[in-house]
């Protein structure tokens, strides 16, 4: 097996040539306290407080958590709960912007001189996995036993259609990527850096190869243009031939995976002391008048970002955070740009139409394209029958929800959706089983 399987999706990366355009201050900015995986951040401001670009507005709520900084200057209007696209109700800081974008005067580059201070700086940087997952970078790089890290795999695959933010990072911020590599070498003791890039980005491959010539131990792996190359397990396998097994983290295979924009953002913070307050977002999709890359202050309502791109040329049917394969649909244009937001995609009805589901014809496409060799049809049947032992054997817990199965299904069956449900019910069942076992003891 030379590569894990996957599918060909349309690229639609027509914004790749557009250097990101800086967007000004929005009228209002929203900061939900969940913009990462882990515990919600805890607001440290109250209504009436003045904030500037880079002012801490919520501190990390635990070890796996991340602080949130204001991307705008203005006055805090309120701190109360809002409903997120994920369905969760979380505390949100609302800031009324003054339009001046005054930078917080207290910002200064962090004092970094050893591993501990480096990780501490990362913790303060507010940087999380910017590829979309939002896992706090300080936790990911804060490995206790540094000798376990053999390779750092830099994710430049950007396999989702439309998205070109990482592409622009590789083209425009090569120096910062290099600085990030040197930081990891110095403070984490890593000597091997592999950047994986899909072969549909020849410009990035060229740029990163020339960067690799300047940094010892860095090499470029050209990945096939097969979705989902950017998925952690697929990327690690295709760059190092190591398979992250069930229940393992990449570090168990001696690997840390970091998104290319995340790495550049780490370097920027260490150099300037400016935490994560803005984000390069690809604004695209059939309904967008002027598709382009935009650097927007975090907290900007997506409606204002779309307006900045000329609004909609046709009625949007779906607005997405992220790409069309794994992104989340937004119900309301006041939803803000978050740390992990790498794309704002407005799809027309033609592009996103949900066709009627027809009977399964057992063509086997779903199982043949699954990167992890799962059998979605069998999983759906076991889930319908609430046969948890079968779900356990079918390893539905491995499903990374990449959506390949649903994408290829000619009968338009909701396969990945059923996998998600099956995963949740299997988890519940396993937890209950564990509880019973501990009760017995």
């Amino acid at each position: 097996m030379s590569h894990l399987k996957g599918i060909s999706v349309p690229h639609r990366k027509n914004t790749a040539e557009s250097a990101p355009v800086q967007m000004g201050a929005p009228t209002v900015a929203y900061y939900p306290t969940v913009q990462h995986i882990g515990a919600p951040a805890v607001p440290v401001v109250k209504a009436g407080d003045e904030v500037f670009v880079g002012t801490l507005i919520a501190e990390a709520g635990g070890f796996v958590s991340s602080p949130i900084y204001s991307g705008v200057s203005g006055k805090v209007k309120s701190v109360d709960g809002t409903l997120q696209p994920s369905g969760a109700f979380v505390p949100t800081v609302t800031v009324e912007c003054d339009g001046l974008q005054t930078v917080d005067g207290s910002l200064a580059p962090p004092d970094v001189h050893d591993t501990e201070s480096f990780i501490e700086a990362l913790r303060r940087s507010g940087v999380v996995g910017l590829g979309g997952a939002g896992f706090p970078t300080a936790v990911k790089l804060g490995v206790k036993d540094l000798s376990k890290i053999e390779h750092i795999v830099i994710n430049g695959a950007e396999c989702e259609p439309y998205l070109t933010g990482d592409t622009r990072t590789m083209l425009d911020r090569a120096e910062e990527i290099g600085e990030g590599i040197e930081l990891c070498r110095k403070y984490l003791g890593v000597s091997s850096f592999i950047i994986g890039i899909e072969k549909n980005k020849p410009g990035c491959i060229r740029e990163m190869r020339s960067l690799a010539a300047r940094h010892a131990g860095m090499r470029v792996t050209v990945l096939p243009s097969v979705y989902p190359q950017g998925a952690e397990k697929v990327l690690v396998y295709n760059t190092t031939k190591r398979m992250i097994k069930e229940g393992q983290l990449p570090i168990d295979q001696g690997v840390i995976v970091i998104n290319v924009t995340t790495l550049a953002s780490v370097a920027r913070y260490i150099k300037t002391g400016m935490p994560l307050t803005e984000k390069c977002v690809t604004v695209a999709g059939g309904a967008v008048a002027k598709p382009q890359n935009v650097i927007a202050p975090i907290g900007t309502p997506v409606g204002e970002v779309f307006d900045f791109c000329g609004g909609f040329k046709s009625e949007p049917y779906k607005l997405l955070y992220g790409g069309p394969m794994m992104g989340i649909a937004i119900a309301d244009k006041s939803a803000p740009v978050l740390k992990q937001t790498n794309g704002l995609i407005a799809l027309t009805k033609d592009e996103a139409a949900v066709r009627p589901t027809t009977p399964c014809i057992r063509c086997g496409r779903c199982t043949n394209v699954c990167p992890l060799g799962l059998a979605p049809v069998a999983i759906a049947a076991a889930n319908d029958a609430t046969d948890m032992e079968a779900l356990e054997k079918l390893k539905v817990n491995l499903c990374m929800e990449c959506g390949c199965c649903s994408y290829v299904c000619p009968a338009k069956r909701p396969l990945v959706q059923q996998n998600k449900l099956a995963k949740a019910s299997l988890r519940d069942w396993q937890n209950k089983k564990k509880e019973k076992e501990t009760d017995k003891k």
Partner: protein
Amino acid sequence: MSKLNVSVSPHIRSGVTTTGIMLDVIIALLPAFAASVWLFGARALYITAICVLTCVLGELAFELITKRELTVGDLSAVVTGMLLSFNLPVDIPEWQAVIGSLIAIVVVKQLFGGIGCNFANPALTARVIMLLSFAQTTAFTAPRGADLVGGATPLALIAQGDEDKLPTLFKMFIGERAGSMGETCAIALIVGFIYLLCRKVITWHTPVVFVGTVFLLSFLTSDFSLEAAMYQVLGGGLLLGAIFMATDYSTTPPTKWGKVLFGLGCGLLTFTIRRFGSYPEGVSFAILFMNILTPYISKLTARRPVGGVKAK
């Protein structure tokens, strides 16, 4: 602005649909269909029309009567009708064609749950039932251009030891030999095969392994005669079966190795029946037999979850 749709990912889907796949199969069958009309005359068109119409109306009627969801628009009944007709001799009486079509659609397909649920190929099963019930199913007619007087098929001639009466290999290739309507023209079937491969409707595994097995075994058991092996490949319903019947989704294994095993089994059985059986043609029985084994082959060759760890 009207309300936004907020269904879960993925938000885009491929353009491949069940109806589209069936349409591709129909297009792939058209060369063989044209050849059947050219070789056997307008009656080939007439019989095919009867089979297709009966299959479509039979499916519609069954779904209406049993109040099931109407799936007749997916064109799969058209494919079944065409395949059944291609497996029949041109002189089959109309009423037998109608009965065969109803067996295929109602008994073999719908009674087992409709599209995707049948375990045996509808057209093939119907053909075998007709073969065992009606003598006319094996009363083959010679097409235009064929030199032979009677309607003995090449494989029957070989079985009888009348090898000197065999049509030339070239005639076998373009279909000028006795047989079922749609099975004789090898070149038309191969064109359909290439089309299906290009459209990624099927993979090469089953057809190539199936035909390759028959070719190899025939070659090895005929004193290494390439000619004899080629007659086995071009004779009977081998190409039609290997390309269009042994690649049916519901009744064959889904994975690559499953398809290889399936093709191998079909090839072995076809060779065995042709060589040692009393019946000169074995493709239908071979595929049908392998259809029954499909669940086991599928289980045996199912993909293993990558990186999965056995439960303690």
